[in-house]
């Protein structure tokens, strides 16, 4: 393997040459061995997110976007390829050092109830990462947890309730508070607002926007909700069946999509205000057996040949 210092930047962006990305994937593949045979969940994905930037990862269920999130977090080892945090290959780090790195990268999951400890109160859930990383004493951790819960809109009166006593939206707020407890640099959000009500979804997005700029967070934002991604991301990568089919600055992707699959996704949106209601139906079938190349069609705008 090549030395860390002279690895080529994986994705061409205007900033890549001058600055090392916070998180980067280089030609990452992931194959799961299941009883039904091999499942090639992620195919040759390269991406990079720079400090303070937000990358939106979109695609339908089964596109490999959640697997990608776990790969970026070092929760799954890639079958081949490399994931780097601040240039450091995650697969070379173990034990205490890895734990220390993990405090810089936190995750908000799709299913808040599944990701919270059911027998811990809301405050204890949020204090848990602080305890694991030996921050402060017990009283300070609780105080900090209550502050964080307040920040995400969970009323002080309810901090000693258990996760199942909260609505889905409130549970997700608790999960976000927990993710922020260690003041991470990188936040990986996997469908963070999908389970929330409309008014709550907007609150959480406004909150995430605010936290992102205040804390200078670098964010990977995974969603199938294109409107949310358009609002939140600086750059968008579209995945289909484990592959990146298009990757572009947000405005370019929404304004001038180049790949038929991206067009198909955009055409499926049901607008609330704008007219006319959309037309169906661009049919495009992915053929993963015939690999084709990502081509740069404009500066920073890449499309897979179809």
């Amino acid at each position, binding site marked *: 393997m090549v030395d860390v210092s002279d690895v080529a930047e994986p994705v061409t962006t205007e900033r890549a040459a001058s600055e090392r990305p916070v998180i980067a994937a280089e030609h990452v593949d992931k194959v799961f061995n299941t009883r039904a045979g091999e499942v090639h969940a992620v195919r040759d994905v390269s991406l990079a997110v720079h400090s303070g930037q937000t990358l939106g990862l979109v695609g339908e269920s089964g596109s490999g976007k959640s697997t990608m999130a776990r790969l970026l977090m070092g929760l799954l080892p890639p079958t081949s390829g490399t994931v780097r945090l601040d240039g450091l290959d995650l697969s070379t780090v173990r034990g205490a050092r890895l734990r220390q790195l993990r405090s810089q990268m936190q995750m908000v999951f799709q299913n808040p109830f599944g990701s919270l400890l059911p027998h811990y109160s809301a405050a204890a859930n949020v204090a848990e990462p602080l305890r694991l990383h030996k921050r402060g004493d017990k009283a300070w951790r609780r105080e900090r947890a209550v502050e964080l819960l307040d920040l995400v809109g969970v009323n002080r009166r309810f901090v000693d309730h258990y996760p199942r006593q909260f609505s889905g939206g409130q549970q997700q707020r608790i999960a976000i508070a927990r993710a922020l407890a260690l003041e991470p640099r990188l936040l990986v959000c996997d469908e963070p607002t999908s389970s929330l009500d409309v008014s*709550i979804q907007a609150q959480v997005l406004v909150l995430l926007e605010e936290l992102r700029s205040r804390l200078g967070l670098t964010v990977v934002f995974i969603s199938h909700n294109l409107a949310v991604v358009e*609002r939140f991301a600086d750059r968008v990568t579209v995945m289909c069946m484990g592959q990146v089919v298009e990757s572009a600055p947000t405005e370019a992707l929404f304004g001038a999509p180049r790949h038929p699959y991206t067009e198909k996704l*955009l055409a*499926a*949106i*049901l607008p609330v205000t704008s007219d006319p209601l959309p037309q169906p139906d661009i049919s495009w079938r992915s053929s993963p057996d015939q690999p084709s190349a990502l081509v740069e069609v404009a500066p920073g705008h890449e499309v897979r040949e179809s």
Partner: protein
Amino acid sequence: MTNSLLEVRDLRTDFLLKSGRLRVVDGVSLTVEPGQALAIVGESGSGKSITMRSVMRVLPKTARIAGGSVRLDGRELTELPERQMRQVRGRQIGMVFQNAMEALNPTLTLERQLTEHLSWHGICGKAEARRRAIETLGDVGIPEPEKRIRTYPFQLSGGMRQRAMIAMAMVARPSLLIADEPTTAVDVTVQRQILDLLAEFKARGTGIVMITHDLGVARYFCDDAVVMYAGRIVERAPVRELLARPSHPYSTGLFRSTIEVGGRDRALAPIPGAPPDLAQRPPGCAFHPRCERAESVCRENEQMLLPLTVNGVSRGTSGRPGAVREAACWKVAAHG
């Protein structure tokens, strides 16, 4: 005057808790005509699902219908003996849920799940039931229905499962379909297919109640909408009117909270706070603690659902016969 397909009047449903009765559906009235779709819009806990479960009388054990009337084709359902109610559910009302994997029985083939109630209710014999099941699977766009009828739910993709569930709801050709967030759990491209499929049943005359929190779905699919908050209807309007000019502050808030593609420049204005705990229902208008327009009258008294009129002429119904525009708010100026 002829009967509507579904006519719900002043429906009230309580949860019986240790701490006492909790009213979760409070005086809901709504009407559905054949071939029309009504959207029930609101957040979780607003009572939209419990309202429709009250109509079908498939409530949790702790819930009771406390009053009001539910008429399907003119027939009162709230007082029907359970035996007959079962017939109504089997023949006249179909229901589609958010999560097909939970609604379908994982241990039975599609054939069993689609035909069982047909023969059980004596709607038709076994051979005819099978023929109908295959036909309905074809109708919902499942390829090779003769083969697929022998599969189990887990062998189908998410979109196909959703279709299979719709087939199960529609196989007895019910006149009313209740769809509870039918597209929330599916991908955007599948969402359109599912809605277009439901639209076909609608075009054939099925009345549809669609419970949703997605205003885009409501606009694409439904004719009329009611907005629910804390167990009550706060606004009723044709969908397009509602989205063009929401009048209740809660409807306005929902609308402003909605994120849509191309709306990046529009400032997000989420409604502050969260829906109330019904056990501690705010006095007066339940929405007043979150409402920027609230005044003392809102904190003390609740406004009824009243027609929006200008000089006695109803307004904002685009002239469609039967269309109604109502809101329950002290601050809506044009109340009668």
